[in-house]
């Protein structure tokens, strides 16, 4: 047995090898192939002149192992019958087999389309080397044009480096960082339609799931010399026994697995209201607490954003303990939790179950109930007393307020909220310089709605299958879709987009991100020019990162702008940002208008109406008409009468863009915003 640590992230390293390498080596190994698939367990080391690795991680190369002659299949056969032997004649230790056993389980769980039992051979189309992002279909092409290439191991000599990684790599993190560029360009599975997840995210997920299972399982040596793998008292000998089948519907073949786990989707919320600018420090505190949780539970946390965490945990893991740092600061957590057999556990199973219950879908409910599948909604809230003697804290309203007098102002703020205030002034110029200089500001916030994202990914994957495959089992493929890895990739791109947004405004002192490191929120001194630049920057970045994503009321990503007098309370901006049913863009001009826009509407209005200088006087006339009659009929008539003179405005109305939409946008982008 090798003493080196088993690194699950290395198991798919073969997916980073260029096809040319195999072709080049064929001469040496003729008539046989130098190796099969993306694993090196059958690699012709001697003929090709390489040394076989002997580390613990080497045995990860057997995760798809099967032998047609003996009808052996690693996913089905008993661990005690895994008679593996490498090219040097070494056999894996029981510990090696145990690692491999958990790796296979983790690999199944982390794949975007279940491959536990589903024998899918692809759509008949040739494999795609580069990743296809559903929200940015030309991504790989664009990266290729920049000179990038998916493969990390491009020629025969690179295989030496590859085997050296398997032999000597120190950790999964080191491996992921070293090959990040290639891993992000390579799909987890190159066959259409499974080429939609990055190998980077897949490997990251496999590593996390593997380590959670490793922490909670043990290898049990039985008296008869055989071994079992035990998870919370449940012993198994085969992968299939542990995870069960992957079907969630049908009357027969329920295929219950013995091992269950939980996927918890956790939204971080707070009751606080931002009375003063310094109360925005709460957002920094939230980031700090999330960062603590991510560091402490780096395997359990599948991914985290500024207000959302997905956890992969065992049935008995205490979530309150995990979220203690947030609960201590009066945040509360809304959790949607799914408990299921490993074979079917995924991030949208909760929605499937709830839908099946609502529609009383017996074929699905029969399987899910028999497999003891549960969906819970839970709130984790801080312990609060039954009564509070006044005064109550004006910020969190969950603790007793302490009188704080500053000049003529008396406030009642609890010690915790005061501590957050005392973290410092996040944006000093706002109250000192900006307030004196100008009278209007625009607060803005980017948002990513995880529910909408799940729905969009499901819908889009279904369409992708339909467009690319003519499969009898397309429905199965769709049913077994697991969007978790895609969600992670999407969130990564979203974060990059918001960071990129701020780079565009570097050095501009009229626009600020008031909370350091919190890229979703910003504020600028309102001017038509800057408002236009903010909107156009967002449109252009969205076009670059998410050109194929919905950009209407179903858009997972949105930008909200709230323009008011600088003295207007920040909590009211926040209330606007937290509103449900957001569109792609939401603009509120305090006491003037509140409007939603799709990307299509915005582009049409900005490019065809606001960009056309000759129409400005006409638009002013329309604004006056709107003020006078408060009706769109008069505007429509006026536009119709002037359709030849101002065809762009007539065209917009014909396209279904309401006059109020372009008039309101015109007001803020051209400066006539007095209502």
């Amino acid at each position: 047995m090798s003493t080196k640590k088993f690194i699950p992230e290395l198991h798919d390293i073969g997916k980073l090898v260029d096809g040319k390498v195999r072709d080049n080596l064929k001469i040496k190994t003729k008539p046989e192939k130098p190796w099969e698939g993306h694993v090196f367990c059958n690699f012709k080391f001697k003929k090709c002149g390489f040394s076989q690795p002997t580390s613990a991680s080497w045995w990860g190369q057997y995760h798809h192992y099967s032998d047609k002659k003996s009808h052996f299949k690693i996913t089905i056969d008993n661990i005690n019958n895994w008679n593996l032997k490498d090219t040097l004649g070494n056999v894996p230790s029981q510990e090696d087999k145990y690692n491999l056993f958990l790796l296979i389980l983790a690999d199944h769980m982390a794949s975007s389309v279940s491959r536990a039992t589903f024998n899918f051979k692809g759509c008949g189309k040739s494999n795609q080397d580069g990743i296809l992002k559903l929200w940015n279909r030309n991504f790989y092409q664009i990266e290729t044009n920049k000179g990038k290439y998916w493969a990390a191991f491009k020629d025969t000599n690179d295989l030496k480096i590859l085997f050296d990684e398997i032999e000597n790599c120190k950790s999964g993190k080191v491996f992921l960082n070293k090959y990040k560029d290639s891993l992000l360009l390579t799909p987890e599975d190159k066959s259409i339609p499974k080429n939609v997840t990055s190998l980077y995210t897949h490997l990251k997920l496999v590593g996390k799931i593997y380590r959670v299972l490793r922490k909670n399982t043990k290898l049990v040596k039985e008296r008869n010399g055989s071994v079992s793998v035990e998870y919370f008292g449940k012993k198994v000998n085969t992968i299939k026994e542990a995870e069960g089948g992957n079907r969630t519907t049908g009357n027969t073949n329920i295929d219950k697995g013995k091992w269950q786990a939980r996927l918890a989707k956790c939204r971080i919320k707070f009751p606080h209201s931002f009375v003063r600018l310094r109360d925005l420090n709460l957002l920094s505190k939230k980031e700090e607490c999330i960062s603590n949780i991510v560091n402490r539970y780096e395997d359990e946390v599948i991914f985290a954003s500024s207000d959302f965490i997905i956890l992969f945990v065992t049935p008995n893991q205490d979530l309150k303990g995990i979220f203690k740092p947030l609960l201590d600061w009066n945040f509360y957590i809304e959790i949607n939790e799914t408990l299921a057999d490993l074979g079917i556990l995924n991030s949208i199973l909760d929605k499937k179950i709830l839908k099946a219950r609502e529609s009383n879908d017996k074929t699905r409910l029969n399987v899910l109930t028999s497999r003891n599948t549960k969906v819970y909604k839970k709130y984790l809230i801080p312990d609060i007393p039954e009564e509070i003697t006044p005064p109550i804290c004006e910020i969190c309203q969950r603790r007793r307020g302490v009188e704080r007098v500053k000049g003529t102002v008396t406030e009642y703020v609890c010690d915790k909220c005061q501590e957050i205030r005392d973290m410092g002034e996040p944006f000093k110029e706002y109250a000192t310089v900006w307030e004196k200089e100008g009278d209007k500001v625009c607060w803005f916030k980017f948002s990513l709605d995880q529910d909408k994202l799940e729905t969009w990914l499901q819908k889009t994957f279904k369409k992708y299958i339909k467009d690319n495959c003519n499969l009898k089992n397309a429905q199965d493929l769709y049913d077994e879709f697991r969007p978790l890895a895609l969600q992670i990739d999407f969130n990564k791109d979203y974060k990059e987009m918001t960071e990129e947004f701020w780079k565009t405004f570097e050095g501009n002192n009229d626009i600020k991100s008031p909370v350091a490191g919190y890229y979703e929120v910003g504020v600028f001194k309102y001017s038509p020019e800057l408002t236009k630049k903010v909107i156009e920057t967002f449109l252009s970045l969205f076009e670059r990162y998410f050109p194929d994503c919905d950009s209407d009321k179903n858009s997972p990503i949105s930008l909200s702008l709230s323009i008011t007098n600088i003295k207007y309370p920040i909590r009211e901006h926040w209330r606007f940002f937290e509103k449900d049913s957001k569109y792609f863009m939401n603009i509120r001009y305090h006491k003037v208008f509140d409007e939603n826009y799709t990307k299509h509407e915005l582009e049409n209005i900005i490019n065809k109406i606001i960009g056309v200088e000759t129409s400005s006087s006409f638009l002013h006339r329309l604004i006056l008409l709107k003020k006078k009659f408060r009706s769109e009929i008069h505007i429509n008539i006026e536009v119709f009468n002037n359709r030849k003179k101002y065809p762009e405005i007539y065209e917009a109305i014909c396209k279904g863009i309401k006059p109020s939409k372009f008039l309101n946008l015109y007001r803020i982008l051209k400066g006539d915003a007095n209502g």
Partner: protein
Amino acid sequence: MGSGEFIELYIETDSVVIGERPKGGIFRPCQSVIPSSTVEGALRHYFGLKVPAVGFFEKDTYEFDEFTYSVNDKFLNISKIPLTTCYLRPKKSYRKIGVRVYIPNNNTVFPKSELQGAEFQMGALKSKGFGMSKIIKIEVIKSEIKQGLLKAKLSEEEIKVFGIELVSPIYGYLFKPDKFSVGGIYRRALFPDSLVRAPEILLKEVTYYDE
């Protein structure tokens, strides 16, 4: 699952201020959920009714607006700095805001004929004319108990009387005045979005979670 019986009051209201606790500065926010303490206070004050009650604004019949006023210091005979308060007013196409108030019907005598058409005020800034309300219709309704997300804000001690069972609550506080209405205390209260089993009229959404 069982059901609960309620007296439903359909009320029409002019502009109304349901103040939120946080103040801080010169802007007073307003909420669109009527806490049980507000409805109960109004029914007790105007009709002497000591009954548990919750109320909801009819969706889409209201919108937010702002009202600026100045508090007068009678002693010094001066006006203090102007305050702005948020309030709800009827939405463009509506003449009044629709409100439905639910009182558990537990066989106590209810003065239906006295309340029919009665007028009263509810919420804050009554002296400025806010909260004028009229009871339009009173009827007894039944509501099936289902699992779902609560849309009401009500004191913890009233949970039982409304036939609510907690699954996973969200708590906040509601102010409970003392018997002299001089002081009072903040009592823990069940807040909207709590997962409960309750009469459907109290739910914003029926759900199907395991318990």
